[in-house]
């Protein structure tokens, strides 16, 4: 049994040939039509009005149903085990990796999957100016941590501006000699952290260049903190930067330009609408909430029209969740941009599919229903932007990972199993042993 499971895991990539028929297909990039999608070897093989099902293919009749690409959440913190999502002890924690702590058994994965999410960028927290390395995952529920990881696409890192990274510089309560304050305490200091860190990284880059180029014979020490910063400057690592206010975003773009790189996205980007013009020139994307505001000082000017303004002014925008609960309904979050600011259906759907894929430079693999892309698909019972839309089936790499009917039938079995174990556990517990200090 255990062995069989092991094999199953190893064979995860071999998906059944599947055809989804009679659905309203929202390709996102190539229009919407009523037709079929053929899946082979985990990829979208064919998209069309009429496709003949290959012999032996699994047929999914989606009459009256709606088919979209799997939703992509560009900002999530689910499924990270132990010790939190922040290495907040230092202002530059570029050496830490979310990848190390992906927890494939977190139920948040299943819940998000049931909301149509197939890919999520699990970000380091926002406690410091230069945070840790993020990790893109696919919601392959039931698989191991290693199998959750998204294969391909550039690595990325989290930056953070404003209230959060400066918070550690402010003591709660009276300052005693024992109070440890972490620089910085202001937005001025946040900028300084970047300029100091990248100046250091430039020097590091040079020592290696000198060594490799032969002008120095002393091999430098590898520094896991500075390596990612060099990667950023070399354009090999994307920066997703937590930011709220327009002024701080402008600062960040200018610092990046000073050191010869670009910010990939501003996350939250509440005041993106104020600085959309500058963002468009820099080429940074805006990835944020649909309608959050007023939970702290730096978001008092948050408006639900933000996505629409950015989109209209040439900024590639995306809607994300940053929240395990909200993550389960990104479709209606996207729909809010139609209400506030009048985006079209296609624009709204793009905010949670192809646009975040572009932000993460994985749009050649996911984000739309196109031949050759991963078969990450969601079957909805209603229009995907409707408040009443419920995902019925969710495919990742052509494998069925969520099925609403199956979920219902599995509940009973799970409950029975649990009842039995609960009964067993009612028998008198063994005496707890003394805990040795270790």
């Amino acid at each position, binding site marked *: 049994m255990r062995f069989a499971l092991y094999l199953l895991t190893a064979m995860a990539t071999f998906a059944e040939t599947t055809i989804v028929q009679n659905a309203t297909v929202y390709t996102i990039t190539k229009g919407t039509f009523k037709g079929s999608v053929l899946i082979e070897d985990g990829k979208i093989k064919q998209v069309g009005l009429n496709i003949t099902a290959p012999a032996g293919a699994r047929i999914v009749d989606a009459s009256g149903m709606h088919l979209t690409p799997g939703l992509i959440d560009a900002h999530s913190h689910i499924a990270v085990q132990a010790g939190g999502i922040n290495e907040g002890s230092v202002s530059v924690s570029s050496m830490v990796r979310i990848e*190390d702590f992906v927890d494939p*058994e977190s139920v948040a994965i299943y819940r998000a999957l049931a909301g149509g999410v197939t890919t999520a960028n699990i970000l380091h927290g926002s406690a410091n100016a230069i945070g840790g390395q993020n990790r893109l995952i696919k919601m392959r529920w039931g698989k191991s941590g290693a199998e959750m990881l998204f294969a391909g696409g550039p690595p990325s890192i989290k930056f953070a501006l404003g209230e959060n990274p400066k918070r550690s510089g402010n003591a709660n309560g009276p300052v005693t000699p024992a109070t440890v304050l972490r620089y910085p305490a202001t937005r001025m200091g946040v900028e300084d952290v970047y300029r100091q860190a990248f100046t250091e990284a430039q020097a590091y880059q040079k020592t290696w260049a000198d060594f490799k180029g032969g002008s120095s014979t002393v091999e430098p020490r590898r520094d896991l*903190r500075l390596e990612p910063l060099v990667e950023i400057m070399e354009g090999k690592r994307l920066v997703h930067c937590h930011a709220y206010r327009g002024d701080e975003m402008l600062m960040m773009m200018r610092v990046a330009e000073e050191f010869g790189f670009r910010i990939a996205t501003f996350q939250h980007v509440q005041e993106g609408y104020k600085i959309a013009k500058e963002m468009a020139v820099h080429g940074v994307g805006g990835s944020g909430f649909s309608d959050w505001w007023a939970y702290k000082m730096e978001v008092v000017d948050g408006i639900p029209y933000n996505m629409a303004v950015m989109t209209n002014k040439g900024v590639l925008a995306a809607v994300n969740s940053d929240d395990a609960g909200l993550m389960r309904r990104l479709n209606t979050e996207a729909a809010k941009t139609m209400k506030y600011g009048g985006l079209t259906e296609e624009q709204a759907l793009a905010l949670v599919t192809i646009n975040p894929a572009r932000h993460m430079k994985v749009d050649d693999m996911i984000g739309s229903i196109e031949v050759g892309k991963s078969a990450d698909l969601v079957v909805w019972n209603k229009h995907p932007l409707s408040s009443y839309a419920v995902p019925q089936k969710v495919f990742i790499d052509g494998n069925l990972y969520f099925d609403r009917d199956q979920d219902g039938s599995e509940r009973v079995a799970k409950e029975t199993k649990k009842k039995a174990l609960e009964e067993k556990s009612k028998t008198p517990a063994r005496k707890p042993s003394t805990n040795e200090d270790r």
Partner: protein
Amino acid sequence: MIKSLAFLCLPLLAVAQKQTTVAIRNAKIVTISGPVLYKGTVILKDGLIEAVGENVRIPAGAWIIEGDGLTVYPGLIDGLSTVGIIPPPVITPTTTAPATPPARGPEDRPRTTSWERAADKVRANDPRIDSARNAGFTSVVTFPTAGIFAGQGAVVNMAGDNPSKMIVESPAGQYMTLAGAGGQGAARGFPSSGMGVYAYVRQIFIDLDYYEKTKAAYQANPAGKQRPAYDRALEGLKESGRLLLPAGSKVEMERVIRLASELNMPFVLYGAQEGYRTSEQLKQGKVSVLVSAKWPAKIPNGDPDAEESLRTLEVRENAPSTPAALAKDGVKFAFYSDGQTPVEFIKGVRLAVERGLSHDDAVKALSLSTAEIFGIANRLGSVEKGKIANLVISKGDLLAEKSTIQYVFIDGIHFVPSPDAAPATVAPPGATGRRPRTGDQK
């Protein structure tokens, strides 16, 4: 019954009895390394096993123990313990300035005492030594346990009035913890998170490699070169030879194995209670594990209405079947006490036996396997000629509930088992720790 016996034995409690030559004859001998001898003889001489077999000549003048109805086992080993190391007195935190500022990165070598050696810390007067021995434990692998790189362990025999004579092997590996210090802010320093710990571990191994290289280059030709700074953290790490890494759940085991495979040093996992889910992977990766025999239990005085997750219930139900699963799949594993008293420890092992592990495999996981994991199987862990004379002799299967331990030999010295009275945990010196008794010559 037991009480009255204990009373009678009182003057002889834990008395070490030195005898140059001992012969145990006509006993069942569970050698662990070879077949069981149903009517065999073991000769102990000068602290070593001189002979084991069915036709062994007993030397003249030997103290003869009639082994009818007795079973001889190798002395048990606790694979991971702190016995012998008396914790320093607790220092109450003060509100004044911290003595050292919090660590700001891997360069500050946070929570690292990799150079510290259990062998230097072991004291013969730890009262837990008596209780370990009474339960049949003739050795423990003991470690400093505070910090990310806590320090180097030692294999320690549970007898002697002099630590230097008790040490069997040092170092026995580096004890590591991987949890962050916690806290969002800067007060507790780097690394606050598990991610930070991982980053630190990676960096220190890179540093170790770099240190070795620079040192070698300098030593080869020091003239005209900058002298590399001495780094005791790296020196200590290098000496350890083996890492002990914590991993209890399947997810943790997978994660820690991924990390460990990046590091250029052998490793052993400890914890491993979800081994019933990972035995196949452990086997494939040739990973050895120390299994905690402190099985997950319902928290005492818990909320009767609080719902426990299916996962929690499953782990509690299945964890004790981990040893059986590991044995079946041929994963090298040994037990450790995980802070339990020896009596609780044996109870935990017994549950693993109830859940499918054979009795003798359980003894093996308390003797030879432990010795193999720590690379001392040429000295300890089985009843074999030439090995250290650590034996435990019982009436009935050693781990069975009703068995009684009749004799304990450590380094060939006989100890009369005594009823256990020592506390599970050790109080700092000057508190309630009782003075140990020294052995009397017979």
